């Protein structure tokens, strides 16, 4: 983990409530996809945990949804403004077990972490398939970005206004894959967990206090013991998940 000051380079709307922010700063603590950063906003006491969408040396990309007052404030920030950010938080995805044809499933605001994951897997020579799930056509973002990486992309919409009608799991049933990685709302994670025919990794969300393992605010029970979503997570292996809710 590192604490650093980042300068906003760009902050643009991708949909009516999803934004992409590019920040310049020290990204060296971000070691793999699936990790998150925790950023401090003026006027808010707790930091905001946001998943890493992409990072190259010196440049961090976050794609975030406006869900409350904090992210609403973020959406109004402009190039040149700075943010205090803790980087390199969480365990991230383990790419070593992907096999040759990994399947990535992102739902809504769970799509962004799939981007860096797809990029890294493709760089390793894997044949990557991606399913991006949204409620409706107007909510879709990053379809072209995933295609540009060279991934095989399927988009699903619940209302059928674009791509395959239904949930990511409806598309998943028709796919052939060696392993899966997913991030999205918990009902989706559970559906993917139930539908999947292989082993895989799932990324979870929880309200956090600190984001770096100190407060025990985001603990969960797993079959391999108690874990902190922010420290031993947010990525869990399929075999260790104990569904509570």
């Amino acid at each position, binding site marked *: 983990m590192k604490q650093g000051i980042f300068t906003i380079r760009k902050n643009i709307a991708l949909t009516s409530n999803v934004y992409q922010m590019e920040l310049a700063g020290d990204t060296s603590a971000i070691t793999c996809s699936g990790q998150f950063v925790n950023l401090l906003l003026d006027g808010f006491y707790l930091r905001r945990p946001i998943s890493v969408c992409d990072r190259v040396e010196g440049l961090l990309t976050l794609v975030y949804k406006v869900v409350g007052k904090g992210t609403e404030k973020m959406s109004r920030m402009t190039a040149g403004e700075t943010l205090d950010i803790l980087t390199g938080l969480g365990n991230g995805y383990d790419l070593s077990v992907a096999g040759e044809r990994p399947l990535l499933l992102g739902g809504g605001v769970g799509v962004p972490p799939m981007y860096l994951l797809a990029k890294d897997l493709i760089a390793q020579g894997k044949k990557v398939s991606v399913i991006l799930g949204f409620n409706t056509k107007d909510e879709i973002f990053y379809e072209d970005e995933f295609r540009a990486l060279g991934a095989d992309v399927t988009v699903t919409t619940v209302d059928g206004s674009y791509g395959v009608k239904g949930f990511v799991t409806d598309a998943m049933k028709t796919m052939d894959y060696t392993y899966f990685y997913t991030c999205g709302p918990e009902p989706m994670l559970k559906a993917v967990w139930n539908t999947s025919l292989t082993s895989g990794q799932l990324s979870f969300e929880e*309200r956090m*206090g600190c984001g770096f393992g100190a407060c025990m605010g985001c603990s969960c029970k797993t079959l391999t013991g108690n874990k902190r979503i922010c420290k031993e997570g947010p990525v869990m292996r399929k075999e260790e998940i104990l569904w509570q809710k």
Partner: protein
Amino acid sequence: MAEMKVNLCGIELDNPIIPASGTFGYGYEFAELYDINCLGTFSFKGTTLEPRFGNPTPRIAECPMGMINAVGLQNPGVEKVISEELPKLAKCFHKPVMANVSGFAIDEYAQTCEMLDACDQVGWLEVNVSCPNVHGGGMSFGTSPEAAAEVTAAVKKVTKKPVLIKLSPNVTDIVSIAKACEDAGADGISLINTLLGMRIDLRTKRPVIANKMGGFSGAAIFPVAVRMVYQVAHAVKIPVVGMGGVSSAEDVIELMLAGATAVEVGAANLINPFASRDIVNDLPRVMEKYGIQNLKDIIGGVQ
């Protein structure tokens, strides 16, 4: 040269800064970020006789200038703390540590303290009779002078280490409780624990926290801490450790003027993991600004 040393119940601290229990784990995670030997000491995560998972999530809610938590004393239990956590800590922290203890019955407090009394690493026992997030224990011992005195007496019987009783602000007369602890043999008082609070999500119309209520902490509660430290420090002869929303070296000076011998830093560690170190480093500058040569001289110095 700014003199920051203070004496807490017979043990000298290099400076009065103590990360508060529940915001600093068992120390070693922060030791990955900076040398925690720069601290006076720290109070480790509230430990109980048996292991506890704590409350269901969500356990955290944000507030203006603060936060609510309802962790519910998640900890691995005293046996594992002694066999696993303390040996890990020994590698990165070479000062006496403050052991924070909680319980659900008088003899649980006593048993846990007796086990920790045998640990050389432990300098003080900070007995939490003020956790608002557990049922049938915790705060219920800290809201009546009789119960607080009973816990104090039971713990004092099993240890030779200095015993600090950590009090709840969720009471009408903090002074009577502090005095009851002093009369029962407490070596010091630490306060304040969190204020009982609650938030409701307007969209779901449900409490934000699964436990409904939780402990409100952070900068917002600092004035309450100053007031209660002032009241208690002027009523008892034993040292008072002040805490509650401390976020800066200026806050440390203010609580010491109110009567604190040492100062704990809580929620600030969760926002800025370097907060306690930064406060230690900033203290000499603030002391100079206010013409303070020796921190000891300002304890209870409010006019």
